[in-house]
């Protein structure tokens, strides 16, 4: 029976490679409850650890009495700083060059801080034992306002380093001051501000919020005392880095530590850092010789593991009377909490905040960031964004709106005349970045046309008149945003975490029958890596994505990588995957040529096979080549078909997008109703459009949460006021609007397949779009700027302040 030859198109489609909306292979297990998360791990003799936490935001710990807890049947141990001190594990280094208490060493610095670690036979006994640990505190005044940190009567928080005039990022001017980071040209910017025809100024506060992944942080440590091998399962976004840190801290040789990230229920930056729970679980397992599980509850997650944002950004923007931007100035007061535990590349203590010139050709700019200690939880992670990029995008997109008001100019037009033009790429920004590629005008115009922007503005003007005439109590807001991200950290020459260069990796093995396994240094937390990386590889090596297994997260098997955060998986590990695939293809070409009895140069690649040039009927498929590589002795070629690539990206990638949000606001109730949301994303080459759309929907919903209510609020005593989901806003389907998505495609010139990354774009671009819509609604009544989060109560207060309830 003869098989009809398939066309090139049919063969390409069969690969399910780049550009295919392939269904997520992970979902069959997730939707059937068959995922394997840390808390699903059950081991014989497993113990449970739980923390005694500080009630106080700032206090000396006078004494800890563990006797009653230890007397409770089923309690195995209660660890305090005194027990960890002989191991030098009562403090641990943070990712930002600071150190953090593992367990309270003489004092506590934030509410919820870890004071003692109870180890018991089950989690219920552990919870009971926590009640029995008696901690005597001497309360100290709490510092919750970073602007009061350097006042004469401010309490000194970090007495351990109060006398250090030099921190990890240069000089410190006060015991509560962490660093000053300066970028750009201060003098030139200030002289432009002094002479420019128009200067707009605003304080833009991006409030404290929290990534709040569905699954909280947790770990299981198991020390095998016979083999001397420690296995650590955990919710780690960077398992390989955790292994290195665990080795350096514990003194256990790195080859004797195996770190495994199983399925992870969302990370969003919360699971990048190293937490006291991991250290205590490891110590407890070493001490007891039994596996120890620690999983935080929701309140512990919100109040003690890494928060995001808390940036007070004072901005000045200078322009000509026609609206051409001349300069941008920003001073940020960054509230870092009690320990500087930001997860940023070492050389960037304020992350990539210096992308704050956004999508605009701003010739001169200056940025200074002051990091400040307060009695709040540590963190400052990139919540679904690349290191502080969402702060930067929010800042510039608010400043553009504020400038437009000052100029009495349409904000869409103002953006348009200041965009970096297509022909200016690669573009050198005033604050030191080289933007790889972009076509902002095309994206912007497409978005404006899609929503019929002019008609919207006309409708809005009519509505304002109707409101003034008493015919309606609703106002309409149009939220514009054109954002540019900087993702895919990053070049080893300037990006590292704890000294580890931020490359990533992929190792591929082709099996004899022509299927494959690829292992990567990243780890999916819901992004769908098992689906998309197989697609990248399918297009590179001509094996169907369905025949490729993707594996990540086990440091014993996966190649070393820096993990998944900052939209770096596709730009870095995705590039490594393509490069490793090309190594496979290069070897396969030699094998194919041998099998076809022609010279290497006489065969060429075509979708899934090598074809003899000029004789397309003579070919060897990748499947045939794979089989031959294991079954035939090929002169000069090693058996097998494997490749490894460690990829150091030459530059970051710069995805961008144009978002427009239309909102109706009830002035009397403060209720905001999203009428329309249009999101156009340009993430370069699109690997799986369905996954992109899913990412955009998810990210926009998180952005909506942040802009419209989600916050970690503290009272003046340092109590967390939003420590549970009763007060911390997570949108449900009730609050989530319909989104319209679209795209343009401007490939990255330096990425092997031109992809830029997309997972975080909707959070970065969504927040300014939602916030701008709220601000825009009240513009006609004299509002220039009001702070997030725009919950109903605050919107009502804004309306009230403007006299709209009279």
């Amino acid at each position, binding site marked *: 029976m003869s098989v009809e030859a398939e066309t090139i198109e049919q063969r390409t489609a069969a690969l399910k490679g780049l550009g295919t909306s392939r269904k997520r292979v992970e979902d069959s297990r997730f939707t059937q409850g068959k995922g394997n998360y840390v808390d699903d791990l059950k081991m014989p003799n497993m113990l449970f650890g739980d923390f005694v936490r500080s*009630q106080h*935001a700032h206090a000396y710990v006078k004494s800890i009495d563990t006797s009653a807890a230890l007397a409770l049947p089923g309690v195995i141990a209660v660890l305090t700083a005194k027990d960890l001190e002989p191991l030098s594990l009562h403090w641990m280094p943070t990712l930002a060059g600071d150190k953090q208490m593992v367990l309270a060493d003489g004092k506590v610095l934030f509410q919820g801080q870890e004071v003692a670690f109870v180890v018991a036979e089950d989690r219920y006994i552990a919870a009971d034992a926590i009640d029995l640990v008696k901690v005597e505190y001497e309360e100290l005044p709490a510092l919750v306002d970073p602007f009061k940190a350097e006042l004469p009567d401010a309490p000194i928080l970090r007495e351990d380093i109060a006398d250090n005039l030099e921190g990890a990022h240069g000089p410190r001017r006060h015991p509560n001051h962490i660093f000053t980071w300066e970028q750009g040209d201060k003098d030139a910017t200030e002289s432009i501000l002094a002479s420019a025809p128009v200067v707009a100024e605003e304080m833009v506060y991006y409030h404290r919020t929290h990534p709040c992944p569905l699954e909280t942080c947790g770990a299981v440590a198991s020390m095998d005392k016979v083999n001397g091998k420690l296995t650590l399962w955990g919710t780690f976004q960077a398992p390989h880095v955790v292994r290195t840190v665990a080795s350096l801290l514990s003194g256990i040789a790195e080859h004797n530590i195996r770190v495994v990230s199983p399925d992870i229920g969302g990370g969003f930056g919360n699971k990048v850092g190293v937490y006291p729970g991991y250290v205590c679980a490891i110590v407890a397992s070493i001490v007891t010789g039994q596996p120890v599980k620690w999983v935080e509850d929701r309140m512990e997650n919100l109040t003690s593991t890494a928060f995001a944002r808390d940036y007070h950004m004072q901005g000045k923007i200078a322009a000509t009377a026609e609206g051409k931007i001349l300069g941008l100035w920003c001073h940020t007061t960054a509230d870092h909490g009690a320990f500087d535990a930001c997860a940023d590349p070492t050389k960037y203590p304020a992350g990539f905040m210096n992308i704050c010139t956004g999508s605009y050709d701003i010739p001169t700019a200056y940025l200074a960031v002051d990091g400040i200690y307060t009695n709040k939880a540590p963190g400052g992670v990139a919540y679904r964004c690349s290191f502080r990029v969402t702060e930067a995008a929010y800042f510039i997109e608010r400043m553009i709106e504020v400038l437009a008001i000052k100029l009495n100019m349409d904000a869409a037009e103002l953006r348009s005349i200041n965009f970096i033009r297509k022909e200016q790429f690669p573009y050198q920004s005033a604050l030191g970045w080289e933007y790889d590629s972009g076509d902002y005008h095309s994206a912007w115009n497409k978005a404006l046309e899609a929503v019929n922007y002019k008609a919207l503005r006309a409708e809005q003007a009519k509505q304002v008149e109707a409101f003034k005439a008493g015919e309606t109590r609703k106002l309409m807001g149009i939220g514009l945003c054109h954002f540019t991200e900087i993702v895919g950290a990053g070049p080893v020459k300037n990006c590292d975490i704890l000294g580890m260069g931020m490359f990533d990796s992929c190792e591929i093995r082709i099996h004899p029958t022509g299927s494959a396994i690829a292992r990567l240094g990243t780890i999916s937390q819901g992004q769908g890596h098992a689906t998309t990386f197989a697609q990248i590889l399918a297009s590179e090596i001509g094996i169907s994505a369905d025949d490729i297994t993707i594996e990540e997260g086990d440091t014993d098997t996966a190649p070393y990588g820096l993990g998944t955060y900052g939209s770096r998986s596709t730009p870095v590990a995705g590039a490594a995957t393509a490069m490793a695939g090309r190594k496979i293809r290069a070897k396969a070409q030699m094998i194919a040529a041998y099998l076809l009895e022609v010279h290497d140069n006489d065969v060429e690649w075509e979708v899934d096979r090598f074809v003899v040039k000029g004789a397309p009927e003579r070919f060897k498929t990748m499947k045939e080549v794979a089989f031959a590589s294991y079954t035939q002795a090929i002169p000069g070629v090693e058996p097998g078909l494997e490749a490894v690539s460690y990829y150091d990206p030459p530059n970051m990638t710069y995805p961008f997008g144009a978002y427009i949000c239309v909102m109706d606001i009830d002035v009397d109730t403060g209720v905001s109703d999203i009428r329309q949301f249009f999101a156009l994303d340009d993430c370069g080459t699109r690997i799986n459009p369905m996954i992109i759309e899913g990412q955009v929907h998810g990210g926009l919903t998180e952005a909506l949460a942040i802009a419209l209510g989600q916050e970690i609020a503290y009272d003046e005593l340092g109590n967390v*006021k939003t420590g*549970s989901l009763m007060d911390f806003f997570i949108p449900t389907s009730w609050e989530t609007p319909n989104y319209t998505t679209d795209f343009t495609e401007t490939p990255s010139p330096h990425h092997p397949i031109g992809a830029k990354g997309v997972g975080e774009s909707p959070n970065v671009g969504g927040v300014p779009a939602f916030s701008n819509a709220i601000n825009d609604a009240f513009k006609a009544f004299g509002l220039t700027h009001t702070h997030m989060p725009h919950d109903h109560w605050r919107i009502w207060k804004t309306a009230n302040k403007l006299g709209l309830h009279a």
Partner: protein
Amino acid sequence: MILKDEVNIPLNRDAVFQALNDPEILKASIPGCEELLQHSDTELEATVVVKFGPVKASFKSDVVIDPTAGPESFSLSGSGDAGVAGFAKGGAEVNLTEQEDGTLLSYEVNIDIGGKLAQVGGRLIEGTSKRLAKKFFVNFEEAVLSRHT
């Protein structure tokens, strides 16, 4: 958090003032008071169980009363520890004004609540505290009147 209110008690001022200094009456008045020990004329120790929404907390409280400005006014201060559930501290100023038909008792309670209670019960604390303060003086009036009838 500051709570203010007033209540009229149909007794003369001295009687009301005496009652404020009477541990038995205080015990009967404090909502959820399980135990009240008197360590001296001015120092008391109370065990009080309070429910803030989903959190039930048992406060062990040290209270110091100051009757020196009596019978025109009376003040107390104290702090309570509810273990892992949280803590509270604060004070109360009570003014007693003679009226034709009795004594006007006006109070101003200043209370700070911290720890887990403040996290879980943030939105419940003010309402609960107001309710408890009101309940205290209602109970107080009842206890005083029953003593005097």
